[in-house]
């Protein structure tokens, strides 16, 4: 007996249109969506030409936050594996890229990709024991990883520079000879400053990460991730390999953190163990929650809001309020969770579906009135 014997497809293939069949919705992007994306692209590319260099640098760092938050959103938002240790993978990515560039003179973007690959592997390794622990316990274990990371960096100080920091220098032409100089993204275009070029490179990397993540979320794997988050039994019974999917998600989420960390290291030029404490992990979570957990654009929006809050708003506050910035952020977060638990994107979605419902009701009322 062969496995395929008598096997029949229960459903018509996509082309036949039998009676009573609802055609698949047309997936073309609506005009307002396209317009929105054009505006976003123009603003994102145009901003560095309007702002002071230090702001451009800050925006570059917001982008790295966005990439890391995308990874955490995949892992925690979509797949339900609560991680409070994402900052450690970010740090691992930063040191990987930093060391590759400083010690082996690896091209910058190659080093960033390598940081992603190393963190993918690290994520898989952490993901394996994570199969056995769930929810709060997983949060605790990842918390431990986040706490231990800076200590590990100090431990290997001969390699990492320990508390002195790792200064990332590359051989550059300076005053007529090749010398080790602080790492920089040298602009290949005249009239385009290095900080602007760096920002545009970061923006391109962010855009690519965003597109790939979005593809994954919208695919059958993305559905599987959500199914595992909401109901592991339902997922397994439908043929989803639960363990493998969770491990891959841990890997991909960590790879994004690694890429983000790699960019961040090259942005800062010098990295310290204290740059990767537990608070970094918390900021990623904050960005995901503000923007909207388990939404595609949420982490980016959340990262930008958080970055603007930290770098633009807080410095404007009177001096005596400065130390209270964490308290202010905490307070705002509580307000947000109370009035808009779905974050920015979640709230828009909710408003959209309410509007649609009201329209539908109105249509029904109208037809009833006739």
């Amino acid at each position, binding site marked *: *007996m062969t*496995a395929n014997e*008598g*096997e*029949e*497809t*229960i*459903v*018509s*293939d*996509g082309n036949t249109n*039998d009676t*009573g*069949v*609802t*055609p*698949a*919705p047309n997936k073309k992007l609506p005009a307002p969506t396209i317009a929105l994306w054009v505006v976003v692209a123009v603003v994102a590319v145009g901003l560095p030409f309007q702002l002071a260099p230090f702001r451009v640098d800050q925006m570059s760092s917001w982008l790295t936050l966005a990439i890391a938050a995308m990874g955490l959103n995949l892992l925690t938002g979509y797949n339900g594996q609560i991680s409070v240790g994402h900052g450690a993978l970010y740090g691992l990515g930063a040191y990987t890229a930093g060391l590759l560039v400083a010690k082996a003179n690896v091209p910058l973007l190659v080093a960033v990709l390598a940081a992603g690959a190393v963190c993918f592997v690290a994520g898989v390794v952490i993901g394996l024991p994570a199969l056995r622990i769930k929810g709060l316990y997983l949060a605790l274990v990842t918390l431990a990883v986040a706490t231990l990371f800076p200590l590990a960096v100090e431990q290997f100080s001969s390699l990492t520079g320990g508390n002195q920091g790792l200064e990332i220098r590359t051989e550059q032409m300076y005053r007529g000879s090749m010398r080790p100089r602080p790492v920089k993204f040298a602009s290949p275009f005249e009239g385009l400053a290095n900080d602007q070029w760096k920002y545009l490179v970061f923006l391109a990397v962010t855009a690519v990460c965003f597109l*790939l993540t979005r*593809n*994954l979320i919208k*695919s*059958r*794997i*993305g*559905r*599987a991730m*959500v*199914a595992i*988050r*909401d*109901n592991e*039994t*339902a*997922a*397994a*019974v*439908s*043929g*989803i*390999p*639960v363990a493998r999917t969770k491990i*891959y998600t841990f890997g*991909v989420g960590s790879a994004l953190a690694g890429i983000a960390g790699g960019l961040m290291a090259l942005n800062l030029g010098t990295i310290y163990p204290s740059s990767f404490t537990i608070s970094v992990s918390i900021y990623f979570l904050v960005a995901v929650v503000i923007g909207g957990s*388990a939404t595609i654009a949420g982490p980016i929006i959340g990262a930008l809001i958080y970055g603007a809050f930290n770098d633009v708003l807080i410095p404007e506050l009177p001096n005596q309020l400065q130390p209270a910035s964490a308290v202010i952020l905490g307070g705002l977060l509580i307000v947000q969770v109370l009035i808009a638990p779905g974050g920015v994107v979640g709230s828009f979605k909710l408003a959209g579906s309410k509007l649609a419902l009201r329209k539908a009701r109105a249509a029904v009322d109208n037809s009833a009135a006739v």
Partner: protein
Amino acid sequence: MSQLEVDNVGVHFGGVVALDGLSFSIEKGQICALIGPNGAGKTTLFNVISRIYDATTGSVTFEGTDLLKAAPHQIAHLGLGRTFQNLALVPGLSVLDNVKIGAHSRSKAGFWTSTLRMPQVIKEERQLTQQALDILGRLSLADLAERPCAGLPFGTLKRIEFARALASDPKLLMLDEPASGLTHGEVDELGELIQQIRDEFQLTVLLVEHHMAMVMSISEKVVVMDLGRKIAEGVPDQVRNDPLVIAAYLGAPAK
């Protein structure tokens, strides 16, 4: 050889014996009902076949494959689809996506091809959507396709689960109390629908149901359980008049 062979299956939960040496078999294309009073072990058997529970003894063979050696997610790939007595849907996904989850076992796009959204991924996704919509239409659920599952009535959710199980294109469809939460008229329709779908797609149905009128009218074979054991087996008319069956039902607390 029968399509599904349950042989001497036993399951213990601590001191509770949920299944006690249960054996029966189903032929390809049959509608076989599994009935018995509450706590007889019907759902436990489903969970053994789905590899959610481990059997203490015995074996379950499907088309020659030992199911008890398979991993839970492989069961769907072997051609077994099921629904749950108490529902196991994905509240975070739309009705349509829940049905598409059911098609996971017969779709292919992998992690990397999905990430790159290769042309074959787009094509497969379009087919999955169309097929899921067809099934939803078939079960009069088409209007709900874009809605989230959360908040829909129990009877509707059971039908969505039915749709999800069908989406896997199963050879053996296991339904755990599909009629619960339905009105009388809807129960009759469901019975007809189960027969139609069986005929059209030549699948085998294992049906757990307390609704006796439906069981007796659509089943070709009935297996009666009590306290984890099989107490009778046969065509509906044989089983209906079996004194052991009557005793089990009269002796059991009323449902």
